[in-house]
Structure formats: structure tokens, C-alpha cells
């Protein structure tokens, strides 16, 4: 018990009852005030702490916010804040790079879902595809989307390469990025090729047999290639053996195909894509449409500010 007690209204000692009375009185005024404050605060949700912690800038339509919408967003800051006015026209870029990347995302998504229902073994692979087609919920849709998106992606990659070539967008300073793109083309084709074997049906099996049989003809490294046998290459130790994990397309080939298809090549391709997108920005963004250059001006070094219209 404290020695001194606080003084109450009449200067006398304050007991528990008085204290409780005081608190009740205070509650009567303070709590309604707090309630009013809270309601006021919620009237504009965009000013709450939760909102401002997620969305770090305003969204009313000002040029600053338009720029920030792109620059401060981790997914969108692939883009610059502004681009060449005519680059938004579909006819220039055909959108094929973006479409290819979108298809890659679709393939990854459907691919991951398919992985839940597929076992890369000789006993189960074929059956699993049958199950996907007939009883897995949305299995048929998933498998079909995966296959057709793969074909579309190969076509998209070719059209993208075609467009980049026709607009000369591989010329200085974009030579290196073109080469990254060539590598991405190769990996896209390899992704498609490794996936081809996975249903373990006649179509996939023989396609991969044809493909890997070409490997045994590699000069120096294949047991049927020029100078291969001279270097000690046999069906059991040449580059084809390394690809298949055996001398025939069998269970090991299926497993390796699966690993390349789901993990190995996607990782490499993702890294290359990161470099590819980075270089697009660093090399000056979308190449055009650029102002036409006349032959007479072609060899002159550029000096000073850009020519009219650039």
C-alpha cells in the first residue's frame, strides 16, 4: 500500500471507487472522439498506413505519376518512362518479343501445374499423359495449352528475329544483344525438343531418336563421325551417350530430357533473357522507328545535336 495517496476532488484520499468513476467518465468522452477520428481516417483509404506502405506514390493522372507508375514498379520498370511515339504502333515491332516472353510465362505456369501429375519414368509417363487428358481436372486444357504455346513460342521467336533483322536492329550498338537472341533461339528450340520426348509415345521417341542419332555423327566426338572412331569413340562413350545417358533412348534419356526441359534449360534461358532485356534498355531501347538516313549522310560522322526530326 502506497504511503501517499493522490488527492481527489475534496482534497481527501482517492479510493478505488473514485478512480473507476473517473475512468468511466473519461471513457464516455474519449472513446466517441476516437471513434469519430477512426471513421474520418477511413473515409479516404488512400491515406491509410496500409495503403501508403504498399503504393508508394499517388495515382492521380499527372505526368509525374505516369512516369512513376512504370519506374517504381518492379515488373514494369523493364520499360523506360517514355518511348519514341511511333514505337507504340504494332506494325513496327509486331510485338513478337513481348509475345514470346508472355508465352514463356504461360509455358512456365502450365508446365509447373503439369509437373504435379507427371512421373518421368518409362512405366508411368505415357499413362500420366492419358490421365491428364481424361480425368485430371483441367488436365486436357493444361496439356494442350502447354503444347500449343510451345509451338507458338517457336514461331514467335522466328518472327521476332525476322523483324529485328528487317529493321536493322542488330546494327551498332546492338550486336551483342542480337547474339544473346540467337542463343535464346537455340534454347527455345532445345526446350521444345526436350519436351517432345516426355509423353513417351512413338512420335516423341522416334523424333528424339532421329535427333540424337545425328549426334553420333559429330566429327571427332561421335562414334560414327569423321575421325571419331580413330579417337576411341564407341557407342558407349561418345557425345550421344552423354546426351542420352545410355546407348539407346530409354529410361535415362527420358529422365535427362525431363531435367533439361524443366530445370536446366529454363534457368539458362532465364539468365539470358535477363541479359537480353537489360541490353535492350542499355543499347538505347526499341530501335525505332528511326528517322530515315539518306545515302549521302550515311558515312558522315554525326556531329553535334541530332538532325532535324530525330
Amino acid at each position, binding site marked *: 500500500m502506497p504511503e501517499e495517496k493522490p488527492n481527489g476532488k475534496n482534497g481527501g484520499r482517492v479510493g478505488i471507487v473514485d478512480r473507476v468513476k473517473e475512468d468511466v467518465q473519461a471513457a464516455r468522452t474519449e472513446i466517441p472522439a476516437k471513434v469519430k477520428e477512426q471513421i474520418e481516417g477511413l473515409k479516404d483509404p488512400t491515406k491509410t498506413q496500409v495503403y501508403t506502405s504498399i503504393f508508394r506514390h499517388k495515382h492521380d493522372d499527372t505526368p509525374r505519376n505516369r512516369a512513376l507508375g512504370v519506374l517504381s514498379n518492379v515488373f514494369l520498370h523493364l520499360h523506360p518512362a517514355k518511348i519514341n511515339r*511511333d514505337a507504340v504502333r504494332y506494325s513496327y515491332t509486331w510485338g513478337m518479343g513481348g509475345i514470346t516472353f508472355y508465352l514463356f510465362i504461360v509455358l512456365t505456369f502450365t508446365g509447373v501445374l503439369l509437373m504435379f501429375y507427371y512421373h518421368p519414368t518409362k512405366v508411368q509417363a505415357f*499413362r500420366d499423359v*492419358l490421365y491428364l*487428358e481424361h480425368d485430371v481436372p*483441367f488436365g486436357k*486444357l493444361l496439356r494442350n495449352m502447354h503444347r500449343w504455346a510451345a509451338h507458338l513460342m517457336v514461331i514467335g521467336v522466328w518472327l521476332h528475329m525476322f523483324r529485328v533483322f528487317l529493321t536493322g536492329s542488330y546494327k551498332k550498338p546492338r550486336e551483342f544483344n542480337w547474339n544473346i537472341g540467337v542463343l535464346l533461339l537455340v534454347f527455345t528450340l532445345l526446350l521444345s525438343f526436350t519436351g517432345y520426348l516426355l509423353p513417351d509415345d*512413338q512420335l516423341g521417341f522416334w523424333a528424339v531418336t532421329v535427333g540424337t542419332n545425328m549426334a553420333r555423327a559429330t566429327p571427332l566426338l561421335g562414334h560414327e563421325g569423321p575421325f571419331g572412331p580413330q579417337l576411341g569413340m564407341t557407342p558407349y562413350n561418345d557425345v550421344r551417350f552423354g546426351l542420352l545417358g545410355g546407348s539407346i533412348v530409354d529410361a535415362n534419356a527420358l529422365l535427362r530430357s525431363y531435367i533439361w526441359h524443366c530445370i536446366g534449360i529454363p534457368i539458362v534461358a532465364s539468365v539470358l533473357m535477363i541479359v537480353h532485356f537489360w541490353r535492350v534498355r542499355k543499347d538505347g531501347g526499341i530501335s525505332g522507328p528511326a528517322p530515315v538516313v539518306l545515302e549521302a549522310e550515311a558515312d558522315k560522322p554525326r556531329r553535334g545535336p541530332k538532325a532535324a526530326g530525330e
Partner: protein
Amino acid sequence: MPDKPVPDNDPIVTKSYAAHYMIATVLLMATLLWALWDEAFGMRPWKAYQHVWKDRYTAFLKTARSKSAASQKEVEASPDYQKLKENLDQATQQATPHIRDVQKQIGDLNAKVLAVQSVFTDRRAYVNALTYQIETASSQSLKQSIQKDLDKYKAETAAVEYPDGSRKSYNFEELEKTYNDLKDERAKLNADLGDTLKPVTQAKNAMDDYVNDHMVDLTPTQIAGLEKKTDDLEPSIQQINVAEANIVDRCESCHIGIREPIKLTAASMSPKGAKTPDDYAKAFVSHSNAQLLSVHDPEKFGCSPCHQGNGRATTSIEKAHGNYEHWLWPLYVRQNFEAGCQTCHASDMMLISGDVGWTISRGKDLFRQRGCMGCHRY
């Protein structure tokens, strides 16, 4: 720095994509709904099959039940049955008073047992806990001290309140004995009840056996059972799964009536007024040659070892029957169904059982005698 005011005639910034988005959104929603519909119904025709089955089989069973009831009445009218019924009535009459008496006693005992149980089980639980501590105590002295506590507890008395209002106090030993004695008594009474009921049950069984032996078809009770089963049926994939043999047969998802105990024909499964059986009616027929099924239990054999087809397929008739490109084992045509016997009975020279097997045996004969392999490549 704010942008300069934009002149209105700049096509890039003034063009509206609202119409494009509208069309694209509508198309996208439509395709998504289409995908959902396809997923739920389009590629699951067995759902429709099972819904139609419920309607048609229920209607069929209704007519079957009335026929069955009529037939059962006939059987029950026979003099033998009447005699059995008399026996039953007599036995029941004799047994009833004693049964009632015993049942009342058992009821009383149940209440008593419950009263003792609620007290006893609680005290027993405590005793068991202490006993555990004694057994696992590390030192002898601790053991002894807990044992002392245990003995003290066991000597304490607890009161049991009986349903008739009386109270009695027991210590632990007495409580246990009372509990066991009451239960023994109840067991004795139950045995007595059983003995008394035996002649009644026997007489009843004799009556039922008579009906079952003399009725050609199912009894109304059995048919009512089938009706209930059909009513409770939720459409789902019906599957026979024999993992060791890689058999996954979903044929019964559409051929739901194939193993029903009552004989179904395409005509009886057709909708009312239909001139010819439709696809549904043809699918619902019973398996012919029921004796084959008794020797080849479908739960172990599935359907595809004898009939071929694609057991796992459920999305269409062509797929399920394996009648599409790239499936190497299409369904055997009806006239050739005996070809399926070759799967296992390839080495048998003769394969006849009742009506079944004549065609294939003749075929085997011809094959061996005529030497087909001499000219035709395999």
C-alpha cells in the same frame, strides 16, 4: 516539369482503345466460360449418362417392383408358406411375455451399471495414474511413499446414487466388484434373451428362405434397396483399379447397369415411346453370359483384358472404345467378343463353357488345321 499541353489532333495520344478492349474482353470471357463448360460437361459425357441412368433405371425399377410384389404375393399364398407363417406366429406368441420381462430387467440393470460406472471409471483412472508412477518411480523409497498414497486412496469410500434414489458408499475394491457383478448379471440376461428368441428367428429365416428360393426375380425389398442406391447415386467416375496388372477401367462410368442383379435390355432401358433404343439405352444393358462374370470377377479382371478398348478414357465414346487413330487395342466388335479370351487362354485347345466359346474354339481349330501362317505374314 509538366508536359506542354497536348494538341488534340495527336493520333497517338488521342486514339481510344476502348472498343478494342471491349471486344477482346468479351472474347476472352467467352473462351474462359467455354473452357469451364468444356471441363465440367463437354469432356465428361459420363455425367449425362449417369443422370439419364438414374431416371430410366428408377422408372424401370418401379415397374419391376410392382411385378415383384405381385409375384411375391403368389409365393406367399402357397400352403407351405402359410404353414411356416403359422409356426412363426406360434413361436412369437410363446416367447413374447418372457421376452418382455427379460428386456425390462436388462433396462433396469443398464441404468444401475451406468450409475456405478460414472463413479468407478473416474476413481479407476486415478488409481491407474498412481500405479504408473509407482512402476516408473526411480527409487524404492519413492515407490513406497506413492504406494502408501495409493492404498489410502483405495480405502476411501465414494457414494453411488442409484436410479431408484438409494445411495450406497463403497471403497475401491467394493466398487470394482459391484461394477463387475452388475455387468455379469446383464450378460446372463442377454444370453437368456438370445435363447428365448432363437425359435422365433429360426421361424422367420425359414419363411424368408422360402420366399427367396421360390421367387424367380428379386423381392420387393431387394428392389427397394436398388431404388435407394440409384437415388443416392452422385455422378462420379466408376473405376476398377488393379494396380499390379496396370488395369484402370472406367467403363462402368457409362455402362452403369452392366453388373446390376436384375436383367436389363436395350428395350427396357429405352425412354417411353421410343421406337429404337438410343445410345443411352444401348449402354445400360446387362452383361450377357452372367456365368462368365462369376468365373472372371470384374473386380480382379477389369473389363479391358477381355474387351480391349481404352479403359482410362472418359471423354468420348470413340476414345473409351479405343476407336481412334494411334490406339492399338480397339474394342472387339460384339460378334468377335470371344477374341478377348485369347488374352489368357491362348494355349487352350478347346475353350467351351456352356453357350460360350464355340466360336473361338472353332477358330482355333481352323487356324491349326489350315496352316494360315504358311502363306500369311504375322
